[in-house]
Structure formats: structure tokens, C-alpha cells
């Protein structure tokens, strides 16, 4: 049955994004420096405004490889399907995977499918592992983030997390909040080609949001982060949804934005470059010597507040 599921369904829908060696594994020949990343996707609900677990599974791993400063090339695809998942839903997810692969320019070279008893899973879980080759001009590393570096955000935040929460809580808004799930590799490649090793770090704030990533970087670099509240872009509707559910947008997951750390004098040029790529960037802060390991944001009232690491679990099953 699994054989039929694969041959008559999955392989056919994947079409040209699948490199089917018809053997246990794929063979990759390269003499380049490679980056690799893996991620598992357990989002609930599996379909949400702006995407599905399918495109998330592609974009999430593609983006992780891209954030290494690499060009994503190949993915593995592993599906764990709960007995009882509607076949039409499975085909839709696989179709979303195929479309996302085409947009990202990656191929699926090996994979696996398992079916578990009803009750032993939750509709479908997906794992993808991505492999890519380092861009020759890239020199990305948290250790390169320096005092005085500008922190640039490519687009508005909290869209993905709030799209999921709105669907879960049955909230309706005047216009739907959509997930921002998309592949960022073309954008990252373009940026690195333009600015080479002047881009110290790129990173995408997924689970835990911008606040969590900035705390991690402050901790790794032993520098402080200074944020400007009014520069952090949040769409009105998303801000409203966050208020309704008592959530801070800085901690909400994103799937289609990334942060760039570069010398302050480059910040304007980087933002112009991002705008030309279709982003709506904002410089939200900078790395400072003061208050090492702490992220501090000014408040509209003229005071300051700490953006701390949130203890415990974030919103569950968000990606």
C-alpha cells in the first residue's frame, strides 16, 4: 500500500523536483565546502492561512541552510503519516512541497514514508534535511558580530505565529492574517554576492521570535543589544491579534523574515539592496558594549525595558 502511495501519488506530484535514484540513498559528488541542516515539522493545524506544513517543511530547512551562507541544493523528505489522514490532504501537502521546492530551486533526492496507527501521530509530521554549498563570498558566523553592528530586519514580524494562533482560536479579522512562510535563499545569496564578508551574520527568527534570537546572539558574543521600539515593524492587524491573545510580537514565530548584522556604515546600502529584492527592511537596533548579554529596548514613554529570554515553552506546535 505504501508502495502504491509513493508511486501513484507522492512521486507523481513531486514531478521534476524529485531526483529518484530508486535506491536506498542518494549519491552526491562534490569538492565544495557544504552546509547541512535538519528540521522536523509538527505544526498544528496542518493547513493555515498563507501555507501548510508542506511548504513550511521545505522553506524552514532551505532557510536554515541559507542562513549558514550557503546555496541550498538538495533536500531529504521524510513523512510520518497517521492512519486516517485524508488522501486529498496528503496530495495537497505534497503539492505544496513541490511548489515550494521549485520556488527555492532545490531538489528532493531521497526520502522515506511511514504510516503509524491512528492515535500514534497527529495527521502528519515531516522531517527535511537540507544540503547546500557555501557561497564563495560568505563569511557568516555569530563570532563575527561586532560592537557597533547594525541590526536589520527584512520585513514585519509575527505574521506566521499569529496566522496559526488565529486559526487555532477561531479568530476572524477584517483581512486574514497570513503566514509569511517563504524561501529566503535567493535573497540571502543576492545580499552576500553584493556585500561579501561585510555581512557578519544572517539568521531567521523562527520559534521564539526576534527576542529569542537576539538574546542568543547577545549571549554568544558577550555584547549588548539596543533596540528601538518604533523601528520594529509589526502590521496593525498582527499587533491587534497579539494584544487580543496577550502575546508580545517580539516572541512570536516568523517563517519568512531574517535578521542581518553588518557594520553600521553599510546599513543604508544593505537596506536599499533589500528593498530592490522586494523586502520592506528596517534597522531595528545595534550591537553595543554596554549591558553585555542583555537586550534592552527603549519604550515610547521614554524609559527602557529588558527584552528577556522567555522561560518555558513558546506557543506549542507553531512550526
Amino acid at each position, binding site marked *: 500500500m505504501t508502495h502504491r502511495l509513493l508511486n501513484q501519488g507522492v512521486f507523481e506530484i513531486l514531478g521534476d523536483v524529485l531526483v529518484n535514484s530508486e535506491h536506498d540513498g542518494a549519491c552526491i559528488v562534490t569538492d565544495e565546502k557544504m552546509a547541512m541542516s535538519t528540521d522536523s515539522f509538527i505544526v498544528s493545524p496542518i493547513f493555515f492561512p498563507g501555507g501548510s506544513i508542506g511548504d513550511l517543511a521545505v522553506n524552514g530547512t532551505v532557510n536554515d541552510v541559507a542562513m549558514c551562507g550557503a546555496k541550498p541544493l538538495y533536500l531529504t523528505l521524510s513523512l510520518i503519516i497517521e492512519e486516517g489522514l485524508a488522501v486529498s490532504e496528503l496530495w495537497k501537502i505534497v503539492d505544496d512541497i513541490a511548489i515550494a521546492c521549485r520556488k527555492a530551486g532545490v531538489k528532493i533526492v531521497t526520502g522515506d514514508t511511514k504510516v503509524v496507527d491512528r492515535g500514534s501521530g497527529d495527521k502528519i509530521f515531516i522531517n527535511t534535511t537540507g544540503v547546500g554549498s557555501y557561497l564563495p563570498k560568505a563569511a557568516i558566523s555569530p563570532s563575527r558580530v561586532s560592537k557597533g553592528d547594525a541590526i536589520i530586519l527584512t520585513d514585519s514580524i509575527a505574521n506566521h505565529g499569529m496566522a496559526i494562533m488565529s486559526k487555532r482560536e477561531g479568530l476572524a479579522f477584517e483581512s486574514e492574517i497570513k503566514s509569511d512562510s517563504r524561501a529566503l535563499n535567493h535573497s540571502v545569496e543576492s545580499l552576500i554576492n553584493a556585500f561579501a564578508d561585510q555581512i557578519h551574520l544572517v539568521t531567521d527568527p523562527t520559534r521564539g521570535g526576534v527576542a529569542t534570537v537576539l538574546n542568543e546572539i547577545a549571549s554568544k558574543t558577550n555584547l549588548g543589544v539596543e533596540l528601538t521600539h518604533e523601528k520594529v515593524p509589526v502590521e496593525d492587524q498582527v499587533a491587534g491579534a497579539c494584544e487580543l491573545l496577550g502575546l508580545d510580537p517580539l516572541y512570536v514565530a516568523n517563517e519568512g523574515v531574517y535578521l542581518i548584522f553588518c557594520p553600521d556604515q553599510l546599513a543604508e546600502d544593505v537596506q536599499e539592496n533589500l528593498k530592490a529584492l522586494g523586502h520592506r527592511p528596517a534597522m531595528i537596533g545595534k550591537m553595543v558594549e554596554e549591558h553585555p548579554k*542583555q537586550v534592552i529596548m527603549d*519604550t*515610547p*514613554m*521614554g*524609559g527602557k*525595558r*529588558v527584552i528577556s529570554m522567555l*522561560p*518555558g515553552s513558546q506557543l506549542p506546535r507553531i512550526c
Partner: protein
Amino acid sequence: MKYLKEYRDPVLARKILDEIRRTVTRPWSIMEVCGGQTHSLVKNGIIDVLPSEITMIHGPGCPVCVTPIHLIDAAIDLAMRPNIILCSFGDMLRVPGSNQNLLEAKAQGADVRILYSPLEAVAIAKDNPTKEVVFFAVGFETTAPANALSLVHAKREGIANYSILASHVLVPPAIKAVINDPLSKIDGFLAAGHVCTIMGNGQYYPLASEYKVPIVVTGFEPIDVIQGILMVVKQLELGTYEVENQYSRIVREEGNKEAKAIIEQVFEVSDQVWRGIGEIPASGYKIQDNFEAFDAVKKFGISVDAPEEKTECISGEIMKGLKKPSQCPHFGKKCTPENPLGAPMVSSEGACAAYYHFSGTSISN
């Protein structure tokens, strides 16, 4: 009206702060009663920008913080029983009981579910007729109407497998207890806007006149809190002690009649133990006899004895405003949100949590 922006307008905030600076002539201590107000003060950095003459004292308005430990232990015990689904607001999950918290019980296999509303718990009871569903109903007067409504609904629908473990506390007796503490010195109060949305302002007039303290009901946005502080300061400088309503866009003088009616249908005022503070007479709600089938305390034979808690947590002093979180020797060291000694460090309305998450070194003194 762009609600989020207008009540967070920095230009307006600066104007009101300037007026506070011009008005104040000597030191005043003002208590904001509600944990939500505390969070607004700290998160928005308002404490940093108030003139030094004004000391904000953080009050006991954190219902999660004052839930007696024996009820937390009871909730955990119920959750661990295989035929019980324990439903709760997310806040309660990491509050320490005598041995563990609800989140740890969940990790051990207890069926604990996080909900936004007690009516969701009633729905779960309907969907799971072979199980007992208990909702951990914690809160001030604000959440009492929804909790009462869930019992009315369950009774009407004949949903016998639903009950609530209630821990409701009332604000006016808490204010009285704070004022009567010989160590506390509070000149004026910011009263809790959402409590007053339900109950109205009537209970605060006797407090204001008996203790000669101005009381201003405020909302929770930065402009609300700053404006409330200005109104209290003006009264203090004039020597008046009236009840004023800053939150008039939401709070009516008489409160919400329908909400009050439903509370009266289900609950009656009773003595209540406040964790860290002790028993305050007539400061809580208990379920009336005609709804006793939905009272988890009676249904499951839960002991109402409240043994004294042995703890290093100084929550009582924090909540009466006698100490600031940063004055606790364990703050940020032995006691963190990941490993709290007490409830104020984990609740979204706890003063310790507010300071830990939001305050920089400038307000650690």
C-alpha cells in the same frame, strides 16, 4: 480610534509626566493594586521616568500569586487521577505547590489542559462524558462572572461531570488589609480597572473616606496609568480623598449589572486565605449550596485546611508593598522564572516576574 496607538502616544505621555512634575511638591507613595498595572509600569519604563518624589508600591493584585498552596496541591492531586481532566489558565501551570507544579504533573502523564475560558472546559466535559472535568477557577472579581456562567450553563445542560476548583479573591478587603498593616505607608491608590468594570466603584467610597486616601480607577495602557498617577497626585497635593474614574471609557459607576447578577446567583462572600498574607475576612467567594454539585472541593472531598507554608519566598511582603522584588535576597539568583521559589516570579501579573523580565539595572534599586 486607533486604540493601541492613542493610549501609547509618547507625546501625550510626556505632557502628562511634565504636569506631574509641575504638580508634585513632596514625596508620595502610591500603590497600584493590580498586577496588570505593575506590569504596565515596569514594561513601559514608566517607573524610570516618574519624578523621584513619587514611589510606586506594588500591590497584591495578582490572583495567581495569592492562590493558597493547598489549592495548588489539590489541583495537582486531582490532575494526577486518571479519570480527571484538569483545565486551567496557562499562568497557573508553573506556580510551585508543596512538591511540584502542574506542568511537572502534566509531564508525568496528568491530563492538564490550558484554556482561555471556562466555557471551553464545559465543552470538554460534554465531549468526555466518562471523565470528570475540573476547571481551576482562579481570579479576582474580574473572572468570577465567566466562572459563574460556566456553572449556570453546566447545570442547565445537565453536564454533571463538570466542576470548578474556585479560588476567588476580592480587591476592597485586600486594600483594607494593606492599609491596616502597621508597616505600610501608602498615601493613595490606583484601583484595578477591570475589577471595577464588573463591580463598579461603589465599594471604594467607604475606603477612601475612612482611611482618607484618594483612589483612582485606571486602565492598563501607559497613558491610563500615567494619567491615574497625575489624578492621585493632584488630590494628594490638595488634601482631598475622593474616588475618581480614569477608565471611564470602560468602567461605569454601577459596574456591569448582568455580570454582578450572575456572580450573586452562584457565589457568596466568604473568608479567604491569601498565600503569603494569611486569612483575610470576607475577602473571597465560595460556591453557594445550590451549585454545590459543581464545587470540586465538595465533590472530591478536598481539605480546606491551609497549613502554613514553609518557604523562602517573601511574597507576602512583596504583595503588601513592604519590599520590592529586587530587595529579596533570592531575586534573580535562587529564584528565577525557570526555578521560582514562589508565585510572583511566574505569574504574568507577579511583581517579581515584571521586574525580572522587564527591568534594567536602573530600577533595580
